């Protein structure tokens, strides 16, 4: 066949590389937990903490005039009767000053409406048809977080159970090891993104982790199936058969990853901004998942 991946001699390198990635992820998670302002393993977004997120476009002829966020905040403070709203407010102009995005702690609908009309007086007119506003109470946030963590645990448990029933112990153990490896690395990458770029994770991130879990196991199962099938016919030695099986499945695994990555890339490029980080997390998961299915999981099966 065309592909000739050398697994047997590279086992040590592959395992060291994965260990390195895992350590890097753990480092990110630890750093994030102890050395950041939010003191959490990952930078939780307003889905989990509660808050108010508002994006609205201005109506401008040709180009939108330039405002400094500080001066707008100063003006807001002057005309707002409810100063509480302005504690901890973050305001940004994007898209050549056209788009205003605001983050505040949780507001009632009334407070949020007042904030928008005050804003309209300062930088208006605003296009209400382009409004995107989310208000999440702190109670709901907490609930969402527990919900996401439970979903993750339950589905990992279900997948583990299925794999253990379906394969023998050794295969199951390594498939799950590869799965946790993938999840940990994606989680670690987002810990680092949070530390460096203050990227926040919301409930869609949990969804992406769950999807990655399903996908990663799927990938590994296909290769393990092939290994099992080839071992039955026993044409060559154990290690050689594993290597052969991986090479036989190589095209399939990379092709599937590519056909899954293509639509994700389309979402990243053309899709709505709210799906950007979600698609990125999925893409990363698929790349890491393919690596672990092709190289890591079979390497673990190899005998010394």
């Amino acid at each position: 066949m065309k592909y000739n991946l050398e697994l047997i001699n590279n086992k040590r390198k592959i395992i060291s590389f994965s260990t390195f990635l895992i350590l890097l992820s753990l480092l990110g998670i630890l750093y994030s937990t102890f050395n950041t302002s939010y003191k959490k393993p990952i930078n939780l977004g307003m889905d989990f903490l509660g808050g108010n997120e508002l994006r609205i476009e201005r109506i401008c002829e040709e180009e939108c005039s330039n405002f400094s966020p500080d001066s707008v905040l100063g003006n807001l403070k002057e005309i707002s009767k409810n100063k509480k709203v302005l504690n901890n407010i973050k305001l940004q102009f994007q898209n050549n000053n056209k788009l205003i995005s605001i983050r505040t702690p949780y507001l009632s609908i009334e407070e949020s409406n007042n904030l928008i009309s005050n804003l309209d007086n300062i930088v208006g007119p605003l296009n209400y048809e382009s409004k995107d506003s989310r208000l999440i109470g702190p109670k709901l946030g907490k609930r969402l977080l527990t919900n996401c963590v439970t979903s993750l645990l339950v589905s990992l448990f279900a997948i583990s159970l299925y794999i253990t029933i379906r394969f023998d112990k050794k295969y199951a153990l390594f498939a799950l090891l590869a799965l946790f490896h993938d999840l940990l690395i994606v989680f670690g990458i987002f810990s680092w993104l949070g530390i460096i770029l203050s990227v926040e994770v919301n409930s869609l991130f949990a969804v992406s982790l769950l999807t990655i879990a399903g996908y990663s196991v799927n990938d590994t199962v296909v290769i393990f199936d092939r290994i099992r099938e080839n071992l039955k016919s026993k044409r060559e030695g154990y290690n050689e058969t594993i290597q052969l099986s991986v090479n036989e499945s190589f095209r399939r695994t990379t092709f599937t990853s590519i056909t899954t990555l293509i639509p994700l890339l389309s979402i990243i490029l053309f899709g709505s901004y709210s799906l950007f980080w979600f698609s990125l997390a999925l893409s990363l998961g698929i790349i890491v998942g393919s690596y672990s299915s092709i190289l890591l999981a079979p390497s673990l099966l190899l005998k010394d």
Partner: protein
Amino acid sequence: MKRRQGWLFFIIFLLTLSVYLLINYPLQLGLDLKGGSQLTLQIIKEEGKVTRDELEAVNSVIDKRVNNLGVSESNLQTLGGDQLILELPGEQNPLVASRVLGKTALLEFRTQKEGTSTDLKTLQLKRLSIKELIEQYSFAEKNQNDDNFLKVIQDDLKDIEQEFNYSSTSNDLYGKLIEIKKYVNKEITNLFIKTDLSGKDLINAGRRQEQTNSNWEVLLTFSNSGGEKFAEITKSIAGTNQLLAIILDGESISEASVGNQFASTGITGGSATISGNFSAENARELEVQLKGGSLPLPIEIVETNTIGALLGSKNILKSLYAAISGLIFVGIFMIFNYRILGFVSVLSLVLYGFFNLALYSLIPVTLTLPGISGLILSIGMAVDANILIFERIREELYDGNTLTRSIDSGFQRANSSIVDGHITTLLSCLVLFLLGTNFVKGFAATLGIGVLISLFTSLNCSKTILRFFITYQSLRQKNLYLPKNNFSN
């Protein structure tokens, strides 16, 4: 061969059915695609879980209130045992809905305890001065901020707070004023004794403008037994200096005396009015609340999402671009690598798209942004099964098998790993669907449906199409199935 032809007709039939469904039952779009507001209402219960009956009861009260508000095309559904989701499409302001829905609206009628006349008078006077302060404050707000004027209001408020030994939790002046007003109203309530007449005895509520001024009053119509109770209560205090208080959610909103002329029969006729200086808006809100009845458990609005209509249509466009470009590039990739086989998988993908959308309109699945991303993602996964099969077919062809044989065993041998692999994804979807929030459910539903349909299209449809193709002699050359350079080595 005959059996396959049967499948071909079946697939054509399904395709026609899908197109028919899509034309006649348009897809339901979520708020992030058509614009509108969504409120999540959380039922608050101090102890224990919210029971199914309680959820039903809250649901029906909220439903009545929403209907009485006259919100068009609203949609109310329960979520996960103790939450309700209300959708208001279009540019309808969620503010009014939130004010009307958030209140328990527990209406009570109480009679005054004896010997509390002086206490009541003091409290009523205090309430009056607080109301004046609130009016002054609104006036100051409208006519630019006069800091000195606000200072006076603030000092007056402080005096009142000290008198009651009350410290407010609000940060701003307006919040503090409202808070102390509530406190005084509750203090007034404490001077009254419960009766057995309550909001449950109402059969209707209305509103009208008072004749003497521009204020509004709310009209109550009692049921038969309610009317009797009301007569009984008014009879008992008629002509005394005890007052009758109308209490809403623990706050006394109006206290009235009953004249001596009612001492023998009480106030009969089964109706009463509440005149508590209502504005037109407030009167309408109270009317809606009373018509809907009181909530058996308090609720809190925990989430509000509002998406403008323009943004919604932009989101549709963006998703469409993403889906179509994804489909095209996957198609190019497949045809480039697998030639005729790739073309077959593109055809099954198109079928896959139609079946998916048709099922969405049939079930129905409301399409949201995460839902669409689930659909787009499942395009990639749908091809996965085809890739597995095609790789097998290639191997069989390399081994020198005939085309028909290779195709048959390719489909057969790939079956088990396809089903295995899809089960893990389905497991994830199932968990997401059962435990996830509304938002997440959309993704889980479309991805799950996609994976299931892809089993049918990539196993059955592509096999049928392929079998159909090779009935043509010209399509039976092996090199149409394998890139030439690969075939030679």
